[in-house]
């Protein structure tokens, strides 16, 4: 039978909320997996995040397309029974509550692995299932603070800058996705189920592609600090101003030679003060001054980027804002922005999935469900509940739904 996508037929039971867990299950839904999202009766808190239209959240839509939604009171025995029955027939369970919450609902790994030993269960948390900080509530920014990421961003002498972006959530969702599919692969080869403990802290900390080993291997001599507009350890790598706009230049590889020629500083190519990216950093003020002087003669950031990149193959880029990104011809051609249909919003633009497969080039047409939209369908078709049973669960307040 032809598959609609790579993960067609994989059954996922999803207790996640906000972004990290939902990004992971979004990637799974977009790859064809059958995702049932179980929310509390009041809904995932992200249903309150902007933009809100007629009670519906554009934020929620972005992270939850293609998932079938149930809304259950997980504190009730009946709801837990439903989840256990669904877990029995699922390949994957994923959750991102604060550690301990799943146990309170009898849905921790010890309980679920008894019900379904072949299950792959993935817990995502900010700081991990164990350790002194694990019990605290976590958000992306909390992880950024504890991983040394936030402390690395901002002016040298000023306060750190808040990013306003989900650096931890998106990456953790992607790492979790890879871990889950690896575990599914292992299971398909007779390896059985297992439990995955994914954290924002680990993923954010691994962004230190240079800092950790530099600090360690230099015996604490080289201390990474926030460096404002220039990289701490290698040069030239930084932000420059040109004609009222900003651009980034990265000439730490073989492109250094091209940059020297462009700046009219051919003699720097063989100058020992500029022998490698680290030595160059010690003399970076001289390099920056030459770059700035050259940029002043050009006076237009777009033009400077063109000369740097297209004519001289020196990596450089204009610093774009979100609308400029969305309208850029390259992004338009690549389909980096995806337009989705929504019953309340109409067309909504969101970032497209970064995974592009040659065998499945067209993205699946997926919508985000309203709260509890699939309560009935799932109970009837998956678990053979009768219409009366469903009605009485709804009446008892175990099930809920809402049109947003």
């Amino acid at each position, binding site marked *: 039978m032809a598959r609609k996508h790579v993960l067609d037929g994989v059954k996922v039971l999803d207790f996640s909320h906000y972004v990290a867990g939902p990004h992971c299950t979004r990637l799974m839904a977009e790859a064809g997996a059958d995702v049932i999202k179980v929310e509390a009766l009041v809904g995932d808190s992200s249903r309150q995040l902007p933009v809100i239209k007629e009670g519906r959240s554009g934020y929620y839509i972005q992270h939850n397309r293609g998932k079938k939604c149930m809304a259950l009171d997980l504190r009730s025995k009946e709801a837990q029974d439903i989840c256990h029955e669904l877990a029995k027939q699922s390949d994957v369970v994923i959750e991102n509550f604060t550690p301990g919450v799943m146990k309170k609902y009898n849905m921790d790994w010890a309980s679920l692995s008894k019900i379904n030993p072949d299950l792959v269960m993935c817990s995502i948390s900010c700081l991990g299932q164990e350790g002194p900080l694990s019990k605290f509530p976590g958000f992306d920014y*909390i992880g950024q603070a504890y991983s040394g990421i936030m402390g690395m961003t*901002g002016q040298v002498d000023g306060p750190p800058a808040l990013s306003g972006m989900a650096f931890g959530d998106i990456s953790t969702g992607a790492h979790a996705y890879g871990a889950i599919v690896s575990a599914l692969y292992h299971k398909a080869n007779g390896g059985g189920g297992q439990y995955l403990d994914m954290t924002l802290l680990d993923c954010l900390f691994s962004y230190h592609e240079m800092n950790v*080993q530099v600090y360690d291997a230099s015996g604490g001599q080289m201390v990474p600090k926030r460096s404002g507009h220039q990289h701490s350890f290698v040069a030239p790598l930084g932000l420059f101003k040109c004609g009222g706009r900003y651009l980034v230049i990265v000439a730490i590889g073989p492109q250094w030679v091209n940059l020297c020629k462009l700046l009219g500083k051919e003699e720097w190519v063989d100058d020992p003060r500029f022998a490698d990216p680290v030595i160059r950093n010690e003399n970076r003020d001289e390099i920056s001054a030459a770059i700035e002087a050259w940029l002043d003669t050009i006076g237009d950031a777009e033009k400077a980027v063109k000369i740097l990149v297209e004519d001289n193959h020196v990596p450089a880029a204009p610093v774009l804002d979100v609308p400029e990104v969305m309208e850029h011809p390259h992004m338009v051609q690549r389909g980096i922005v995806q337009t989705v249909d929504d019953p309340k919003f109409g067309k909504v633009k969101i970032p497209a999935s970064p995974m592009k497969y040659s065998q499945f080039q067209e993205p699946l047409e997926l919508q985000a469900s309203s709260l509890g939209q699939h309560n009935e369908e799932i109970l009837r078709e998956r678990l053979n509940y009768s219409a009366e049973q469903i009605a009485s669960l709804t009446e008892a307040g175990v099930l809920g739904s809402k049109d947003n």
Partner: protein
Amino acid sequence: MTQPMLEGFKVIDFTHVVAGPHATKILAEHGAEVIKIEPLGGELARLLPMQREGRSAYFIQHNVGKKTMALDISTKEGQDICHELIKTADVVVENFSPGVMKQHNLDWKTLKKINPDLIMCSISCFGQTGPLSHLPGYDWIGQSYAGIIDLLGEPGQKPVFGDIAFGDVSTGAHAFGAIVTALLHKTRGGKGQHIDISLMEVLFSYHEMGVQLYDTTGGQMLVQRSGSYHGMLAPVGIYQCKDKYLFILGVNHQWEGLSKAMGREDMFADPRFSDLTTMGQHKDEINAAIEAWLDSVGDIDRALELLRENRVPCAPILTLAEVMDHPHTKERGTVRTVSDPIFGDIRIPRTPLRFSEFPDTPNLQAGTLGQYNHEILRDQLGYSEQQIARLETDGVIASKNI
């Protein structure tokens, strides 16, 4: 113990610096055999700090567990070796600028003829298609084009950036996930395929809020760099307490806890601070109240304690040294130690994937330049010692203890 999850897989790895190497490092840590092909002089990461006796700890961090070959892929002989290796490989990963693999007869069209079951993953800054695709790219180039750097820093001032690989590491993780998915697809009867992953697209997906916000408001709500505080929500931001900084988030139900912690129940009762929208409108007043409260507490540990007693999400902003020394990261093994013939013990971030069936990260080393040239040519491709010696003399392969 069962065999590692990806044992038996052969990966031919043409990647360099971080994005590609992060993906193939995870593959290696899960038991795949990764053969990394470098140019004769070694890849760029080998020049990056820390350096000791010509060896780079940066390279070590991103390349543990890979068998290294150094060969000149612009020569016919070098290409023949690659083709022979790829014939029996499961996966090829590369992160050259688009077009380079084709120039060396190693593009998807060529390789799928040699091995129709192959999974090939191309990682690039801008993707394999589109007007920018041919340009050279680095993480920060992608961050610029994805609208990331524009959002960092004080409003109205020059943006800042972090010495951090936001794009590379996450792109490596997305690539790893896509590769393993394609492997699973193959074992379920699917064919080989080509995967196209771009840094810029991964970075763009960090806009967990900004894109739909801009779009659905018809351009009315545009996220902008907002310094230490969140540009739209309050209270969310970085606050100062004496000479230290801490992060506090007190929206939705946490607002009540924060009001209590500050002894400002009056603010919680104030209709001006009743929901996300009105609180965003009065963010200056809210942020000022928090700063004033922190001044009165005057001790970051005491402030964190009060916040936690009221279940308010908060964290001290740690320096890297503090992170590496923190009891929590120590207990979890967030920082791991690997051994190296030249550096001795060296600490790097642990790969974030933690499996109950495989709780220990394998003890792997990073290869020196061309360390496995002989072994792979001899054992996998049946080359004779004379043939190998000739390739060395002809400058097709090379090795060096770095």
